[in-house]
């Protein structure tokens, strides 16, 4: 079936180090969305990528969408303790008459001060 895989599952970093999470789909995606969920909270939308090879930046966060629209990455430069949480990618897939958002399992980021 259609799957979106995320790696790594967990990542511990020292504050100030960089962090990257990768998202890979078995199917070409119409677009990809990234969400952040703080511990005890609910997913909050970060960004959406639509075009092949697209790169978007939000302050210290850089999001990329692969040329084949099957993979994506989120890179955080110089992590801070406020970056702690689980980062989910969710890919939009055309499934017949339906367009379905398939979620990855997330990457949990812990930042040591």
């Amino acid at each position, binding site marked *: 079936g259609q799957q979106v895989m995320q790696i790594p599952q967990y990542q511990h970093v020292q504050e100030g180090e960089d962090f990257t999470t990768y998202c890979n789909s078995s199917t070409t995606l119409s677009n990809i969305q990234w969400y952040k969920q703080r511990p005890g*909270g609910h*997913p909050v939308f970060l960004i959406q990528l639509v075009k092949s090879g697209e790169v978007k930046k939000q302050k210290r966060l850089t999001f990329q969408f692969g040329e084949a629209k099957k993979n994506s990455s989120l890179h955080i430069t110089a992590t801070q303790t406020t970056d702690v949480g689980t980062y*989910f990618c969710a890919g939009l897939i055309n499934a017949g008459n*339906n367009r379905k*958002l*398939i*979620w*990855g399992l*997330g990457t949990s980021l812990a930042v040591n001060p």
Partner: protein
Amino acid sequence: GAGVSQTPSNKVTEKGKYVELRCDPISGHTALYWYRQSLGQGPEFLIYFQGTGAADDSGLPNDRFFAVRPEGSVSTLKIQRTERGDSAVYLCASSLAGGSPYEQYFGPGTRLTVT
């Protein structure tokens, strides 16, 4: 403005009982989604409404689960004959339109515990 709200925030019920979970989406959002999330897992899609109709209910695990959205705004997720495996956080999300690349706004969730 007001975000997505869900009630109750916590629900503890005994195995075999019936529960209803309510979701109030953002005003004007035509698409509404139900997910459930277990600890350490990503959101698991259950059902998606476009207006009053269920456009995709392929994620409902079995016929004990049912959801309605009679007037195209508030939605209720109903679980019959609850089982311990139903324990999870049930998340509701809404977006401006469904089947389109619109961001989803999530509610705080209802934590369901089946004892």
